[in-house]
């Protein structure tokens, strides 16, 4: 099996995996970084969202071979103390219900705010539309993003 050098959350990892393995399963199965979630595997739900060179990407669609050499951030590495403004705002609004989709929502929101610190409702909807929440926490997510934009 080929090996790949990955830079994840500022740490270097060497992993063995099939060329076409999606980054999602390398994170979850090989590295034990299970904060990144599986929801659909086809880029439709956003549960697997990570940052690649600062942009929100679906890790289920990214092959491990493509991910080499890029700066990857997962929910575990978003902040050291779990106090990224988006995480703080999420706690303040007590957003999660089941919680399963939330890592993906947070990663998408954090990337949005980095590129657009004061998003309008339309901007938020546009950026977040790829993240499904079956529990229906959308109203709180929008409020939390607005709170985070002020932190």
């Amino acid at each position, binding site marked *: 099996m080929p090996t790949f050098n990955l830079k994840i959350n500022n740490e270097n990892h060497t992993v063995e995996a099939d060329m076409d393995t999606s980054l999602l399963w390398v994170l979850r199965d090989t590295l034990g970084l299970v904060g990144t979630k599986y929801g659909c595997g086809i880029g439709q739900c956003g549960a697997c969202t990570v940052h690649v060179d600062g942009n929100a990407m679906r890790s289920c669609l990214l092959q491990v071979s493509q991910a080499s050499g890029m700066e990857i951030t997962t929910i575990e590495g978003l902040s050291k103390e779990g106090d990224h403004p988006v995480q703080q705002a999420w706690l303040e609004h007590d957003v999660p219900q089941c919680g399963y989709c939330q890592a993906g929502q947070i990663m998408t929101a954090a990337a949005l705010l980095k590129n657009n610190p004061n998003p309008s409702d339309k901007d938020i909807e546009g950026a977040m539309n*790829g993240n499904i929440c079956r529990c229906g926490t959308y109203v709180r997510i929008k409020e939390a993003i607005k709170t985070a934009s002020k932190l």
Partner: protein
Amino acid sequence: MTKIRTQYDRRSFLKISAAAGGGMLIGFSWLTGCVSSSEPEGLAIPNEWFEINGYIKIGDTGMVTIYSPNPEIGQNVRTSMPMIVAEELDVDWKNVVVEQAPLNTGFYQNQFAGGSLSIRLSWNALRMAGATARRMLLDAAAKEWNIPVSDLTVAQGVIKEKNGERSIGYGEIASKAVGMEVPEEVELKEVKDFKLISTSVKNVDGKKIVTGKPLFGLDFQREGMHLAMIQHPPAFGMTVKDFNQDEIKSMPGIKDAFIIDTSLEKPGRFDEIGFKQLIAIVGDSTWQLMKAKKALKANWEVVGELEDTQMHQDRMETMLASGKFQQGRKDGDTEAAFKKAAKVIERTYSAPFIAHNTMEPMNFFANVTDDSAELIGPTQQPKALEDSAAQLLNLPVENITVNMTRIGGGFGRRLYQHFGIEAAAISKKFGGPIKLIYTREDDMTQGTYRPTYISKYKAGLDENNNLIAFSVQGTGMPESAVFPNRFPAGAVENYTAESVAENTNITTGAWRAPRSNFTAGAEQAFIDEVAELAGKDPIDFRLELFDRAINNPVGGRHEYEAERYAGVLKLVKEKSNWGETKPGVHRGVAAYFCHSTYVAEVIDLVMEDGEPKIKNVWCAVDCGIVVNPDAAINIIQGGVVDGVGHAMYSQLTFNNGAPNEMNFDRYQLIRHSQAPEKIEVFFVQNEIEPTGLGEPGLPPAIGALANALYGATGKRYYKQPFVSYQPVTG
């Protein structure tokens, strides 16, 4: 003061102590990760813990562990159940950590998540647990100081002498409390004295969720464990004959592949009836398993009818026309009343099969040996799983342990046991611990779907526009959604409710607010149309009917309390400023009672670029005492989004027995841009024992939506989904 008999003895306490405390901490190291994240600040980790009873463990530093007995599916019971214990225990919530209790039928009751029943059924048991422990701690302090208990007070986990200087913390006296006699009777607080209940407490797992800590079944890891996947037949009505076993087994990372049979001799209501023979593949990594699944070449055999959606609709319509109904209720003479009515209106409503689509797909860990089985994962009903596993494995139930992880969505899906049973069958055949993972496609195409329904409503008005006759006839696959004794039963002189069921081999089951999730939308849209025909305001029209049910109820009993039903309508009327009109804003109202809770909702909707957009939703809820208001608001908001979303966009259709929608590219779930912009929730204040919230927020949203859409488009909406397939992605 309310006094309550404690109902448990020393022995049952000790039994649970062993199971909940030691057993769990030593035996399931991963599950100790399922301790809440709100680690008490400024309190040292205790050196020693003292089990006061099966719900409560107190550390020598004053830290308190409260066990949450029921599965957490997002309804937030892991916060609200311990809150109830903490209230009666009189402990500072800051010093509390929460741990998931294991399945223990010897001590806990009703360890399941379904029917919005967790809080309702456990209210007394949780209060009693807290009150009993409090009393034992007080007894211990009284004995220590040699004064009567009546000379003591307690607040925030500190016991004080009323007329003296002495005080002692729970942590310091806990070791002595363990040895105290368990009181036969304890006093419960008056509702007005609650300090914690009815205050908003943050989700105890919040920090862990937002930092991506392992919490869910899919995250579970055990040293030496393999991963497994299944492949079920592609269509309902098919079974597996054989497959390219040798080829699959020789693929990289694949350890074994075989066919499992999960048939049970005496299946229960929650056991699989669809796919009992499945291909199982065991391997090292999820990715390799997914590739192996793609390489499968199986021979499937047709063993039943291959159904499709058109067939379903035709059969239900034929059934509805056949008149083969079973009468659920008959008051007066509906036929005669329709004949003499000045106006008669008849409408037919339908809804498709829908999938649960919990965001966390089905999965389970199993470690089956010759004489034991350990099952860990997301189940809403651990006891049913234990029983089915005992049957499948031919083991006594005592040799089976079931532990619950946090659950990435339930909605009824995980009341069904098949994925846990499949994991057990795979582990047994493979001979080692495995974690079974479903792909999204597996999850969506081997469902226990919400049944498909059709109901026909008919109403008759007299010359003064009074409702004098009402009938409902319903069918569905495999059940009708008609509730004969719900509204407007009791409020109409001549009333009939009739049902007939049609068969299907598509597997169905409980889906958030079973039957209510269809009936509320149909009935409340119909009532709206009847009110319009009567020339009456939709809220006033409903209130008139409730007046009748209050003052002079028709027929035998009905399920609802008309005063509380009318109460939520009045509250939502006030909060939404009903009657006020704004240009371009269209309003719809609905009220529904299910799972012992009353909810009325008003939706404000506008058309933006030809698309409906919900601007505001007001919800009025009567669920008795609200344990954790902000969390209660959250779950009601979720119910509204869920109801609106499914009614607008979701359906599962079939072709030759196979679902056409297999993933979120075809199956549409509501997304951010389609969600209401604002949802406000108001609770009726009373001291009635709390009832559930997981389900009741959803059903009325569908009626309110249909009625608001009518204002916007001039069209009535009879068929779900209201909007046809339109993929929207980010």
